[in-house]
C-alpha cells in the first residue's frame, strides 16, 4: 500500500469519526427526546448525580409506588412526592451509556403508577392513562418514522412528566385526585391529539430515512 493512500485515509478517518460522533450524539439526543421531560425535568446539569440514571430511576419508582401499593406508612401522595423528587434528582445522573434504554420506560412507570395510586380506579383515571399513552407512543413513533419528535412548545404547554405528577400529587394531598384526572384528561387530550394529527397531515418530506 502506498504511503500517500495511508495518509489520506487517516485524514479521512478523522473526518469520518467526527461525522459519526455527531451522528451518534444525534441518536443520543433522540433517545433523550423519548423522555418527555417538558418544562421542569432535565433542567439541571447532567452528571450531577453519580451512577447510572436508570438505577436511580428504578429506586425512585420503587420508593414512589411500593409503600403506597401495600398501604404502609402514611398517605400515598407523600410517598409519590418523595419518589418523584428522587427521580427528578436521579434523572440528572451521569447516565451510563449502556443503560440509557430503560430510562423513558421507567419514567412512564413512575407517572402511570402515580396516577393509578393517587387517583384510584375510575373511568377518568383510565381516560387520563389513555391520553398519556397516546402521547408517549406518538413521541416514540414520530422519532422512529420521521426522526423528529413533537415540537418543544407541546412539552412546555403540557408540562412533562414531572409537572404532571406534581399536579396529581398536589390534588391528592387535598383529596381532589379524581377531579384532577378529569381536568387533566380534558386539557391534555385535545392538545396531544390535535398537534399530532395536524403534524401528520401537514405536507413534508416523506421520511427522515434510516
Amino acid at each position, binding site marked *: 500500500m502506498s504511503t500517500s*493512500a495511508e495518509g489520506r485515509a487517516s485524514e479521512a478517518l478523522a473526518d469520518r469519526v467526527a461525522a459519526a460522533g455527531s451522528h451518534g450524539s444525534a441518536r443520543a439526543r433522540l433517545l433523550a427526546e423519548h423522555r418527555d421531560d417538558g418544562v421542569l425535568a432535565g433542567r439541571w446539569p447532567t452528571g450531577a448525580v453519580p451512577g447510572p440514571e436508570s438505577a436511580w430511576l428504578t429506586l425512585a419508582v420503587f420508593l414512589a409506588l411500593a409503600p403506597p401499593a401495600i398501604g404502609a406508612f402514611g398517605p400515598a401522595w407523600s410517598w409519590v412526592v418523595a419518589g418523584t423528587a428522587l427521580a427528578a434528582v436521579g434523572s440528572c445522573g451521569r447516565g451510563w451509556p449502556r443503560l440509557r434504554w430503560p430510562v423513558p420506560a421507567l419514567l412512564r412507570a413512575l407517572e402511570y403508577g402515580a396516577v393509578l395510586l393517587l387517583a384510584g380506579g375510575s373511568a377518568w383515571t383510565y381516560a387520563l392513562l389513555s391520553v398519556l399513552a397516546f402521547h408517549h407512543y406518538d413521541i416514540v*413513533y414520530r422519532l422512529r418514522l420521521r426522526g423528529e419528535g413533537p415540537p418543544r412548545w407541546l412539552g412546555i404547554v403540557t408540562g412533562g412528566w414531572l409537572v404532571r405528577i406534581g399536579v396529581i400529587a398536589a390534588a391528592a394531598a387535598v383529596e381532589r385526585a379524581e377531579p384532577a384526572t378529569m381536568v387533566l384528561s380534558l386539557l391534555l387530550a385535545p392538545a396531544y391529539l390535535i398537534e399530532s394529527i395536524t403534524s401528520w397531515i401537514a405536507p413534508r418530506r416523506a421520511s427522515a430515512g434510516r
Partner: protein
Amino acid sequence: MAHRVLLALTSSSEGGPACLLEHAGEPIVARLVEQLARDGEVTVLTWERWTEEVRVTCPATRVVGVRSHGDAIRSVIAQHGRSGGGDLVLAHAHLVANDLALGRVADAAASGTSAVAGPHGAAHGTPVRITRGRIVAAASPHHTIEHASGVCQRVLRVGSGVGIRAHELLTELAELLDDRSRSGGDADGDGGGPGGDRPGDGSAGVDPKDDLVALVLVALVRGGVPVSATHLPAGSVWSHPRTGTALRQAREAMASLDEERQRLDAAVKADDSFFTTFFVSSYSRYWARWAARRGFTPNQVTSVSMLLGILAALAFAVGTRWWALVGAVLLQLAFTLDCVDGQLARYSRRFSSLGAWLDSVFDRGKEYVVYAGLAVGAIRAGHGAGLWLLAGAALALQTFRHILDLGYAEQQLADVDAAVVQPLAVRADRGPSFWEATPEPAPALTSIRAFDATAAREASLPRRVIGWLRQAEGVGVLRWGKRIVVLPIGERFALISVVAVAAGPRAVFVALLVWGGVATAYTAGGRVVRSIA
C-alpha cells in the same frame, strides 16, 4: 428521479462481456435494462474496448466507457450527479433476476440505502456481517471481515438522503483504487480470495477484482452510512451467469417460477409470532390479495380494523357472555385485518410513514379501547369493583413494556452507528464488539457455533449464559417458545378473546398482568445482563 447504473466489467468464460451472453436471442443486459427502465433512467458502464458491442445491444441506453476501476467509480458519481442526486441503484449488467426480486431494491416503493443480502454460505456473493438488519461490515477484494453472517448479492441502492456523503466516500474509494492499480494492486482476482465467490466452476459470479458493488458497499458501511440488508423473497431467481449454459439454466428457472405465488408468500412477515404465523397469516394473505385486486389501500384496511376493534369493545361493554363471544369474534377479525394491512402494503408495495404510524397507534388504540369495554361490561354486570384499576394497570404495564422494547431497539441502533466507522484503506475489519454481535439472531447454524467459540474463550458467566440462549434460538421449539413467552400482540389478543368468554373481564386483566409481568421480567432481565456483560 431514481438512476440505475449497470456495471458491464465482468467477462464471460469466452472472454467477451458476460452481459452480452444470449439465450433465445435475448442478451442478458437487454432484459435487465428493460426491467429497470420502468422506474428510472439506466446507464451502462463498460470497458472502453467493449463500448461499441454494448452500445449495439442497448441502442436506447447511455453507455459509458471506462479505463480503470477508479475511473468507473468516478463515472458512478458523475451519473448520480446527473440524476440530481436522487436514489441510485448499482448492479452488475449480467444479472439475471425475476421482477419481484429485483423490485425489492429497484422499484419505486423501495427507499433508503440498502443492499441485497443472502444467507451465510450462499453460493454467490461477498461476505457481510448483519446486525439488527443493518450491514455493519462488508468484504471486498481489498477488505476482509470476521464473523460474517450473510452475503451481499451484488445489488446496492443508495438513498437520496445520503447523496452528498456518498459522493465523498466514493471519491475516496476512487483514489484508493487508483493507488492500488498504480502500485501493482493486491487484488489479483484469483476467484478464491476473501471477497470473491467460493471456488466454483466459474460458470457464474463476478470477477472479484471487478466487483465494484462490494467496494462501494464497503466504502459506505465503513463511512458510517446506515445500509440495511434487503432479503430476497423465497424462490427468487438471482444469478450472474458467465456461460451460455448457466444463463440457460437461470432463464429456465425464471420461466418455471410462479411469481404471483411468490409475491403472495413474500407479503407475509417472516418473523411474526406463533399465533400470527399459524392461525392468521395462513389465510390473511388471501384477504390481502383480494383487497389489492379490489383496489383497497392499506390505510383503509387499517381504519376498518380500528372500527372493528371499537365494535368489539362495545360488544364487551354489554356485559353478558353471549355479547362477550361477539366481542371476541370481532376482536379476532380486527386482528386479522391488522395483519392484512401490512401484507397488503408489502403485496402492492405501497408504504408510507403515515401508514406505519396509523398502524401502530390504531393497534394500541384497539387494545386499550377493548380494555375499557371489558371494564364497562363487568361494571354493568354488577361485579365491577376495582375493575378500572385493573384495566388501568394492564394499560400501564403494556405501555411500559412497549416503551422499554422501543428504547432498547433505539439504543442498539445508536451503538451500531458508533461501531461501524473504520478507515477504508485498512484491509482487516475491526471485528464485532460483543454488544454488536449479540442481538441479531444468527441466520445460520455455522455462525452460532462460531459465536459460541468466542463466548467460551471469554469465561464470564453472563456472557456464557447469553451464548447458551443464542444456541437455544437455533432449536425450533425453543425459538417459538421464546416468542410466545413474551406475549406478542397475536397471543395477547387471543388470550383476551378466550379468557373474556371463558372466565370474564376480571380474569382477562389478571391474566394480562401476570403473564405480562413475567414477560417483562424475562425480557428486561436478559437485556440488563447483556447491557452490563
